[in-house]
């Protein structure tokens, strides 16, 4: 990590990576539909993911309506409720957050931020999106098959996931598993692109330790996903065989309706291990890009370099590595050797150390910064607060003795919605408000944005804070209705109704955002090349929005890291990454 200035050895080194010959589309279809341009693919990914997100949002409304006002909505019976729970969870985690952060932001930002013309394998990148879309279509198809989608819970635990008592046992579960398998194949094509582009296709001068933290976050998350999704693939294949062929990988000897099934000898715990070996890294696959994005938003909008850049990078890598050895903390109640419980509790709590480093560094970046409370900044600040809140309850749940009583209560629901629901979504909104001007050339409307922010931020707390309290009282999760429970007072129902009303309000407020995105595309204020006066490379493109090939004739050359804000003695309060070290003013040649 020696940061050697490029000019030390007499002029620029020759490019190690020859300029690529890009595929140049000729028709409208190859330009905008079957496009090989990472930026178009990014928008396709984002649009698809956000549409699924809206659907998953509606599903959460339906669940909340049932919980808040039980037995008013006759169409939400127990079967439907479990289907909503399952589809909401799986959609949000895999098809929305993973696809949006890696497929959406990854595709758009990686080539621009590292100074590449495109991803290294544009054709595979295109296939990645179309396989993702196919996976989404298969998933949605399960709403229209006999028996409806699966209601096994988003964790799809066998044996119940494929037994006849579970909704969607006939078709839904199979479509879900097939959809996941296709998603993973598609993601692998994209993920290889993201990783190789970062490792092998950077601009001259863009050493790894000069990359913006956004790229670090997305890169690490992509790499983790390439290693974590295999476990889910294997689990999905094996469960599909259990369901279709009658194998007994996960199925023990079972009696159903007084009848001894032909299954026997399998291990249900095995699926839990496979699922969570994917499932826990998945949390950080969603969180690390958010960390990276928030680091950049804070630095840009506080006009200060990110505090402890190297520590931030190492913290991202440490979190990524540690997240592969903590998975069984999701399985404390499944029963395990106490020594394993000890190991997994310890490794879980150790993750708090690099995470705390990141939080402190964000706060120290803000400290005495020239803070501009722009929309991206508001969302970034909200992210930090929310992530701390969600992270602290994670410390509760990481301890075996505390987790056992809290397991399967609303406390868990509140915890993971704070930490990997609300927090990443806030980062996504911040990122959209931040990079929308680069994507479209226009600013998003400020007033609408502020309305959206305050309702979303405060509303999310009004939804999920009371849920912690419900959980501490022992209100169980995944119950279609509470019924008579001696330990749950009547007032809990009032709280549930309140949460439901807030969920409806927050969900509706998202329409303001979508309206803003569409309206600003046509009527928004023109943004210019660099409305936030940011130093990182994606704001230095010769044209906004960047055209095919990103950089015009000459590839950029990078002379500094991405965080030269408020440098003493500099002419302006930011120095773009591609401005030479020599103190002459930037000319067009530098572009």
């Amino acid at each position, binding site marked *: *990590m*020696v940061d*050697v200035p*490029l000019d*030390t*050895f*007499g*002029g*620029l*080194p*020759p490019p*190690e*990576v020859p300029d690529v*010959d890009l*595929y140049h589309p000729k028709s409208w279809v190859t330009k905008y539909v079957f496009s090989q341009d990472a930026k178009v693919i990014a928008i396709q990914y984002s649009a698809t993911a956000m549409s699924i997100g809206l659907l998953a949002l509606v599903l959460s409304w339906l669940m909340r309506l049932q919980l808040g006002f039980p037995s008013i909505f006759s169409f939400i019976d127990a079967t439907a409720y479990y289907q909503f729970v399952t589809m909401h969870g799986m959609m949000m985690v895999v098809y929305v957050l993973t696809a949006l952060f890696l497929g959406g932001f990854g595709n758009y930002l990686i080539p621009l931020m590292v100074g590449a013309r495109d991803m*290294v*394998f*544009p*054709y595979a990148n295109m296939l990645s999106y179309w396989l993702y879309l196919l996976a989404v279509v298969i998933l949605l198809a399960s709403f229209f098959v006999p028996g409806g989608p699966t209601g096994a819970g988003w964790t799809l635990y066998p044996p119940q996931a494929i037994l006849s008592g579970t909704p969607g046992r006939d078709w839904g579960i199979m479509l879900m598993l097939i959809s996941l398998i296709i998603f993973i194949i598609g993601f*692998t094509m994209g*993920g*290889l*692109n993201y990783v*190789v582009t970062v*490792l*092998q*296709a*950077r*601009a*001259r*001068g*863009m*050493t*790894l*330790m000069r990359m913006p933290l956004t790229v670090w976050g997305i890169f690490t998350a992509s*790499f983790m996903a*390439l*290693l974590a*999704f*295999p*476990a889910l*693939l*294997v*689990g999905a*294949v*094996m469960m599909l*065989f259990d369901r279709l*062929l*009658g*194998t*007994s*990988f996960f199925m023990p000897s079972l009696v159903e309706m007084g009848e001894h099934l*032909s299954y*026997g*000898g*399998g291990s249900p715990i*095995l699926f839990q*291990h*496979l699922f969570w*070996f994917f499932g826990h890294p998945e949390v950080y696959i969603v969180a690390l890009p958010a960390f990276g994005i928030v680091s950049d938003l804070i630095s840009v909008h506080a006009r200060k370099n990110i505090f402890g850049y190297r520590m931030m990078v190492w913290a991202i890598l440490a979190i990524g590595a540690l997240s592969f050895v903590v998975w069984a903390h999701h399985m404390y109640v499944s029963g395990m050797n106490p020594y394993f419980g000890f190991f997994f509790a310890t490794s879980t709590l150790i993750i708090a150390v690099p995470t705390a480093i990141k939080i402190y560094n964000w706060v120290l970046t803000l400290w005495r910064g020239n803070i501009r409370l722009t929309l991206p900044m508001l969302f970034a600040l909200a992210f930090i607060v929310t992530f701390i809140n969600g992270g602290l309850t994670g410390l509760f749940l990481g301890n075996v003795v505390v987790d056992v009583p809290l397991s399967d209560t609303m406390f868990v629901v509140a915890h993971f919605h704070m930490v990997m629901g609300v927090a990443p979504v806030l980062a996504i909104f911040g990122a959209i408000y931040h990079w929308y001007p680069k994507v479209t050339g226009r600013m998003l409307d400020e007033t609408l944005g502020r309305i959206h922010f305050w309702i979303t931020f405060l509303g999310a707390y009004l939804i999920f804070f009371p849920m912690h309290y419900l959980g501490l009282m022992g209100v169980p999760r995944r119950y279609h209705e509470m019924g008579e429970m001696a330990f749950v007072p009547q007032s809990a129902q009032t709280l549930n109704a309140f949460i439901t009303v807030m969920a409806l309000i927050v969900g509706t407020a998202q329409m303001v955002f979508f309206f803003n995105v569409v309206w600003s595309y046509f009527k928004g204020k023109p943004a210019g090349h660099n409305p936030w006066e940011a130093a990182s490379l994606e704001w230095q493109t010769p044209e906004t929005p960047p055209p095919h090939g990103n950089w015009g004739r000459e590839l950029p050359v990078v002379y500094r890291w991405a965080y030269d804000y408020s440098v003493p003695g500099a002419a302006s309060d930011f120095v773009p990454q591609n401005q030479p070290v020599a103190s002459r003013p930037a000319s067009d040649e530098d572009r």
Partner: protein
Amino acid sequence: MLNRTRVQSGEPPKALVGWQGVAADLSSDQRAFKNVSWGKAMMWIFLLSDTFIFSCFLIAYMTVRMSTTVPWPNPSEVFALTIGGVHLPLILIAIMTFVLISSSGTMAMAVNFGYRRERVKTAALLMLTAILGAAFVGMQAFEWTKLIHEGVRPWSNPWGAHQFGSAFFMITGFHGTHVTFGVIFLLITARKVWRGEFDREARGFFTTRKGNYESVEIMGLYWHFVDLVWVFIFAFFYLW
């Protein structure tokens, strides 16, 4: 690959030793892995991901083998053949393993001749590799047929734990699929070499990228990986 780093740029930076050197190399300009092309880097990382898939399959198989309460069939008896009145345990698997490992040898020779740009030899060796791979898949099909005739199904078998058939068909099937895809791509690569597409840098049909003899090496990486995985399957499934 030519080494064309920092030749024209005056004094090279002082080499750092030990871990510092490793870190400095990895975090150096433009490329983390010097002289590694995009395609090769992609294949290595893909193989790492694929390693996780096969590891999960094998670990899952070991778990079910240990968790089932019914005795596990004896593989050396199950996979025995009687040839000319002689009872030979594991003989087919031994031949299959020999064929597959040999194909790794021919593949390595193909890569070598590819870099010497000896078009005919490269194509012939690629074809030979593909034939050996196809022979492997053929023998696997024979083995599957034999076991199915003897009553082995994914959900049951005559000798013991149901999971024997499940794990056998799943793991060898997944590996066989890898070999089959390998054979298909070997044939495609052999055809391209034979037609001289790498010599005149013809553009790919789908990707429109220029062809290059390096494709042979990338193909080779995949093929050696598939062989290596087989060694583990052989050890854990047939010899255990």
